[in-house]
């Protein structure tokens, strides 16, 4: 085994372990952290450094072991980097919406609800929708919104 190979092995192994570790930490965060908004931070690790390390390991591994160099890993990274923030954004919106409509189900977290932005605006998820306001605040009983959990 040549020195180059040993270095490659070390690098690959390190990246693999790093990737695995971050995937685990991310999921640990997901399991452990107290509120959804906090938990959202966990998987970002898995997405970015976790998968990223594995991909880099793979990009090193194949040429190092005499196989053709592949670039698909880059593509996967690209897709993940494009989609992960949007996923997080949409999940956060869904969560915010849930907190707004069913506060009892979604116990308020440490950070509480975000304050409205200035200039008579609100966050897009909340908007200023009279119909919705009525539905949430009116609670006349007959609307009986569907329960989600």
């Amino acid at each position, binding site marked *: 085994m040549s020195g180059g190979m040993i270095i490659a092995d070390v690098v690959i192994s390190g990246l693999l372990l790093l990737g695995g570790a971050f995937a685990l930490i991310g999921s640990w965060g997901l399991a452990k952290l107290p509120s959804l908004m906090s938990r959202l931070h966990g998987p970002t690790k898995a997405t970015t450094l976790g998968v990223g390390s594995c991909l880099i390991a793979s990009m090193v591994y194949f040429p190092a072991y005499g196989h053709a160099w592949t670039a*698909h890993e880059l593509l996967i990274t690209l897709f993940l980097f494009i989609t992960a923030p949007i996923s997080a954004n949409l999940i956060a919106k869904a969560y915010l919406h849930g907190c707004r409509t069913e506060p009892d189900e979604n116990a308020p977290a440490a950070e509480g609800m975000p304050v409205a932005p200035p200039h008579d605006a609100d966050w897009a998820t909340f908007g200023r929708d009279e119909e919705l306001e009525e539905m949430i605040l009116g609670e006349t009983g007959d609307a009986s919104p569907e329960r989600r959990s």
Partner: protein
Amino acid sequence: MRRILPHPGLTAMLLLIWLLMLNSFSMGGLVLGGIFAVLVPIYTAAFWPDRPGMRWRLPLLLFLLLVVRDIIVANFHVARLILFRRNRDLRPSWLAIPLDLHSAEAITLLAGTISLTPGTVSADISTDGRHLLVHALDVADPAAEIAHIKARYERRLMEIFR
């Protein structure tokens, strides 16, 4: 020209992606990829009516490198938070970041960057499009964090997007 190459940057990107997928360089692949890279944006142009007005120059590359670096650093930081910080000691906070960017693409890129760097997640935008709602896992000083984000990312993005 605009009809043939509605998004020249996109075309270039698609061609690159094609070559990456082919995993080998050949004239045949290049020609075919070129054809596809031109045809696909022509079809999808309808779904992307405006050019984002983006400059594919060095600042973009530098920005991306910066983001990658920040991702790595922040990852370790957040990993520490998750592993060693008790939940009740965390200082989660909402940040309303005032926006100077005004194109949807630019703001999305900013929001994406914020989300990708662990510790902060872009959660929403204000109805007037002037504020970005960001959640931070652990911040001591929200105002400083907002200033940091604006200085580090938004300023650079202002250069990239005219």
